[in-house]
């Protein structure tokens, strides 16, 4: 699609260090701890939240992955799981929740609607929450089965294991800029373009 990468400019105050034996050992222990004690902040808006609840319940048991504690406060959460469609009315709400979460933090976009708008290609719906907040893992499905979400969580754990302290851009907050958006308008339009069956949607459009 030719999207430009998100702005990850490192503030001048950060002093970069080169990787060495100490940083890689520290990275390993920190990442091991972080990836195995992810506290999820569930943002359930639709049917995906039902699958999320099933994932958290005893049969699939999210606690096996260190997610025992569901955090219903963004200030004590590590990973925001957006489970369900996001209307524009909730865009400032999820943005506020994301901004309130302390670093390090990650985001899982669960299901077709959160990832792309899904079947709701209309005036009311955000066409992918990555136009509002940065997303680490997209879980496909409508809704995804619990196995799908667990796989997404394991992918996130894998991603976290690959992080390193020598890359300070990982922890840079990607805030809403002075133009009122967190990524370039052209990118949002491109991400939001109709695809699949929506291309043939001609009603009053």
């Amino acid at each position, binding site marked *: 699609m030719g999207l430009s990468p998100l702005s990850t400019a490192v503030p001048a105050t950060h002093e970069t260090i080169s990787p060495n034996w100490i940083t890689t050992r520290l990275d390993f222990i920190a990442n091991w701890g972080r990836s195995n004690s992810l506290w999820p902040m569930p943002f359930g808006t639709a049917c995906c939240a039902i699958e999320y609840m099933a994932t958290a319940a005893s049969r699939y048991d999210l606690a096996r992955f260190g997610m025992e504690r569901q955090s219903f406060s963004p200030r004590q959460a590590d990973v925001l799981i957006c489970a369900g469609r996001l209307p524009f009315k909730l865009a400032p709400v999820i943005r506020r929740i994301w901004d309130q979460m302390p670093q390090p933090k990650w985001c899982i976009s669960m299901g077709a609607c959160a990832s792309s708008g899904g079947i709701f290609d209309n005036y009311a719906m*955000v066409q992918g929450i990555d136009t509002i907040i940065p997303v680490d893992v997209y879980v496909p499905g409508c809704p995804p089965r619990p196995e799908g979400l667990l796989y997404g969580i394991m992918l996130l754990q894998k991603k976290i294991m690959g992080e390193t302290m020598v890359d300070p851009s990982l922890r840079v907050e990607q805030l809403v800029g002075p133009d009122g958006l967190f990524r370039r308008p052209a990118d*949002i339009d491109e991400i939001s373009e109709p695809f699949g069956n929506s291309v043939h949607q001609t009603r009053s459009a």
Partner: protein
Amino acid sequence: MSEAHPDLVPGGAGAGDGATDGADTVTALRARFPDGFVRAVVMSGQTVVHVTKASAHAILEWLQQDPAQRFDYLTDLTCVEYRDPERPLEVVYQLRSLSRKADVRVKIPLDPQGPLDVQSVTDLWSGANWLEREAWDMFGVRFKDHPDLRRILMWEGYAEGFPLRKSFPLRGHWSRAEQTRQALDANPEAYYSLEELSIAEAYGELPADVRDRLAKAGKVLP
């Protein structure tokens, strides 16, 4: 087969005990409001009365309060706009008489190009409050003397228009980037304060059993 409940009379709406049927309602309405009555049709067994905008409130009040009518329950209030631009935009009131087990549908035809304003019926049915807000939000019909005519589904300050109008494109007028900017710029707290939603504020209006439960749970501010 179980025995039919005595209240469930075959033949559906309007066939209740001692009730007048839809045709009687139409006859009485026509005699009483010769200027307000436009036409009446029966569609799929449902009586639909078209009335003028000017007399609509008086007719609805009469339907609610006349002893022979007693349409005490507003089932739904909504709007319809048709694809045919010649057809008027209609405000629809679906009324139910719980005591008479009768239904009637009242429609006000409005010119889609003209000013869309009708008299609010919140003074007759309090439940019309949110229904009229929804009709305002989606169709842009102004309800005069409504106590709190704010948008209800879209956020207050939504400036793109009225989404269920036929002139409104499915994906909206603006680009997705502009829509996203407007949405992120919205400040929900400016319109929906925590105080507004606070249960402490509404405590006096809650039913007695709910108040008791809250008091026992210690959930009420002194």
